[in-house]
């Protein structure tokens, strides 16, 4: 479908409008008189009387007059939302349902008017498509789960007979904020992994004329998803993002930076095999393949499912699901991240001590730890193939560098282009 409105072109994002208290006040400010507004509502009343179901009311309710509609519309403060699900597994919606911050109840009933979302909406078929088309025509927030398959002319994912790409383009046209939620929407995720049989891509490969906020993760933490929406509503602007388009409020730290197992990493105490003594003691999972050192995510801080646990907390190495193409770059998952220049620990032994209680007291411990670390690395280097991550820009573990040591001129995401490890 094509909208009757003129496309706004590369639209500047103006999400501040939702801070305005109500539509009534907005109209007043823009000089629309109550009389004009009432006339408009009279037309609406006529339409509703013809049986539009969107405002269907119990028979006992008072009849819809222009006055009544005007009063109600004046009070509107909830932004309309289109929440698409394209080529995906619905995990991101499920994660949203689990959010303990802004709960889904608050989100769909009080904060937003989610006029289109396939998983939870009451309407189906034509009625759903109508709700989508109507909302697309006006100012709305667009949330996208899932990737866009470009193979077979779009036949690998169709909705209402349209290709995912067409559905996305139509919904993006008048969207004032676009959130790509989940690894699929951000980078294509699992279905875009080699050999990417359906030609799946992320949202920002299709929508290139507007900023897209990337909430990465497979799925992202529920609280991070709802917080991104709440950020737009309460701050009236898009959140600050890193070089990958991810909001820094949840993605400016590596897992490794705030991991409770970090002291064990620094001390060279590693789980050697699952369920060993070290595992029961909560030692570092680096040796069994943890990707925490290369992964930016708030997992250790926010944790999962009402702070119940998180992957590393439950003994499994981080698989790096907030990172680009992690299914290709971070597999085999159980292989140790490779050694890099800078993990040549000897040269920086004195700097390593920062993570420990005190340099003198810890001296012996450090040495023992470093020796163990070196040994483990030597062993892993020869075992199996190198991770694909080797060839890519990733922030590799380097006990000699703490966040404060990162170069001052680092980009907003604090990820120096060449990786800090070179400097160690």
């Amino acid at each position, binding site marked *: 479908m094509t909208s009757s409105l003129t496309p706004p072109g590369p639209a500047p994002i103006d999400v501040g409008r939702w801070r305005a208290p109500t539509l009534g006040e907005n109209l007043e400010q823009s000089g629309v008189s109550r009389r004009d507004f009432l006339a408009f509502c009279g037309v609406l009343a006529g339409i509703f009387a013809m049986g539009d179901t969107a405002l269907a009311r119990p028979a006992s309710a008072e009849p819809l007059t222009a006055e009544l509609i005007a009063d109600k519309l004046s009070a509107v403060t909830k932004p309309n939302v289109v929440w698409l699900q394209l080529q995906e597994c619905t995990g991101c919606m499920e994660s949203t349902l*689990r959010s303990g911050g802004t709960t889904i109840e608050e989100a769909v009933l009080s904060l937003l008017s989610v006029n289109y979302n396939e998983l939870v909406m009451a309407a189906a078929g034509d009625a*759903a498509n109508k709700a989508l088309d109507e909302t697309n025509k006006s100012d709305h927030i667009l949330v996208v789960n899932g990737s866009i398959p470009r193979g*077979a002319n779009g036949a690998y994912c169709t909705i209402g007979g349209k290709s995912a790409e067409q559905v996305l383009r139509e919904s993006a046209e008048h969207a004032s904020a676009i959130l790509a939620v989940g690894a699929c929407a951000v980078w294509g995720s699992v279905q875009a992994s080699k050999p990417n*049989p359906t030609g799946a891509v992320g949202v920002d490969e299709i929508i290139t004329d507007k900023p897209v906020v990337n909430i990465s993760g497979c799925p992202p933490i529920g609280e991070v998803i709802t917080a991104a929406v709440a950020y737009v509503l309460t701050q009236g602007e898009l959140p600050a993002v890193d070089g990958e388009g991810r909001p820094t409020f949840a993605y400016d730290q590596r897992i490794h930076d705030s991991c409770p197992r970090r002291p064990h990493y620094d001390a060279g105490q590693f789980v050697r095999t*699952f369920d060993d003594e070290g595992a029961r003691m909560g030692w570092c999972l680096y040796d069994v393949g943890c990707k925490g050192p290369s992964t930016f995510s708030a997992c250790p801080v926010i944790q999962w499912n009402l702070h119940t646990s998180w*992957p590393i907390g*439950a003994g499994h190495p981080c698989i790096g699901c907030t990172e680009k193409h992690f*299914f290709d770059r971070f597999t085999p998952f*159980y292989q140790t991240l490779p050694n890099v220049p800078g993990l040549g620990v000897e040269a920086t032994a004195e700097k390593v001590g920062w993570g420990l209680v005190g340099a003198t007291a810890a001296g012996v411990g450090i040495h023992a730890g470093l020796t163990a670390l070196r040994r483990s690395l030597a062993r892993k280097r020869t075992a199996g193939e190198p991770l694909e991550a080797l060839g890519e820009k990733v922030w590799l573990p380097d006990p000699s560098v703490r966040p404060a040591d990162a170069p001052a001129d680092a980009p907003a995401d604090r990820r120096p282009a060449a990786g800090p490890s070179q400097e160690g």
Partner: protein
Amino acid sequence: MSTRVVIDPLTRIEGHLRIELETEGGAIRKAWSETTQFRGIETIVQDRDPRDAWAFVQRICGVCTSVHAIASVVAVENAIGANPPRQARLIRDIVLASQEVQDHVIHFYHLHALDWVNVPSAATADPAKAVEFARSIGSTWKGNTIERMTAVRDTVQQILDSGQLSIFTGGYWDHPDYRLPAEANLMAVAHYLDALEFQRSMIRIGTVFGGKNPHPNFLVGGMACTIDLDRSESINQVQLDQIADWVAETRDFVASCYLPDALAIMGVYKDYFDIGAAQPNYLAVGLAGATFGGDPGASRTTSAHTEVKPGVLLDGDLSTVHPFDPTKIAEYIASAWYTYQDGDDAGLAPAQGETTPQYTGPKPPFEWLADADKYTWCKAPRYDGKPVQVGPVARILLAYAQGHQRTCELVDDAAGKLGITVDQLNSTAGRTLARAVEAMISAEALAEVTFPQLVDNLKKGDIDVFDNSRWDPSTWPDKGEGFSFVEVARGNLSHWVTVEDGKVARYQAVVPTTWLAGGRDADGQQGPYEESLAGAGSHPLHDAAQPLEPLRTIHSFDPCMSCAVHVLDVEGAELQVVTS
């Protein structure tokens, strides 16, 4: 004169489903079930480390999250000869059970209830009478208070007053077949919201063991979560106490809220026990959470209900349980956009399956798909040439046929209250009821069997959760084949894997929704969705613009479309991407 009706998107399901219908005189005469998404995960998993496979295939579905991962690790363990310790297998059972119950609860309240419950009508209800109504149907749920009902009524009123109906926009609220009294609608909306709250708490059981939900972590050879009562960093008494609470809460919610609600609502729509029957053939390998295949002492997970054996019921005969034979399964592509080397009319066993996508449908955007022979991405599995039903009804009927005591009690009780016969479970209302009955059985098993067993074993000092002996690929056979059948929320799920030279050489999943959502086979037999809508030619559809009745029937199957489409090229040949 027949009218063509399209329902697309069919909402409140997992993934993308399109239904095309031909109706005549207010009834459905013909139906086509059309899966409109394809992802190709089984192809992607090829040539990778089999110990990683769970993470890829888990993403087949984020709703019944965990189940593909568990099916995968079990199949891989079977192929490489790993034997996870019994505590790890119990943990997987506990995860499966809690997942299944929360999945049923979400399905009933959030995906299905709006087919029966009129939301705007709740604004006109008397809260005190809503509480009374809840009591009258035997709901002892703690949320049944006048304060709560009043608050929910006010919320509904506010939404209506705002003119922005959010997710309720465009619902068929003026459809004449919404039958519940306003008080029942209010109670149901209140429980809809309670269930949202509740699912957040219930899934935390899985989070303790897997670290997150959806998509928790699993491990070939056992579990990564250590348990050690004497360690602060392992799962210890603190987490066990929490889990005990959630397990009790789970049982309480099902017993005091979900089961009474399902009984009461289906009671009001009793004619739906005569609507929506699919082919009366049923397949299951046991009750929910059961696994099947080979040596139960070795790589298989355990089951709380070992007394219900794998079996098949055919042609509506509930008195004869036929032994289950996996070699009788074949998949057909007569109506699906794939091609087989031996011709598209052949049926192939999953182990010899081919999946070469070949899209021949119209270029999107399109109006109608069913004019051509091929109209879906979903293959059509058949058992011994017959379409079969899997899922709660199949499991409940199989357990009933085998005289499983608790199943018989609950089914007989429900049938008595509703005045229906057991074979009427093959219906739109029957599937919905069976799901609630099954949730009760699973919640009880979790509380009385699996979780207590885990704790008992701990008392005896059994803390092992990982078999290290097969972790190193050098210990694996050059070539190993493994498979697993697992009964998950939507029905029978199986994964097959071949491991060669330390890599995945072949991977295939046959999932519940494929059994149910598949289209016509080479003999023209319809799939169960199609049969349930068009079988007798009398399924109601009063108003093509408001297809409420077919939504009720399709939702009763709990569709999971991402699961339904699986891709595999067993020959390892390049997957054909259609670009023309």
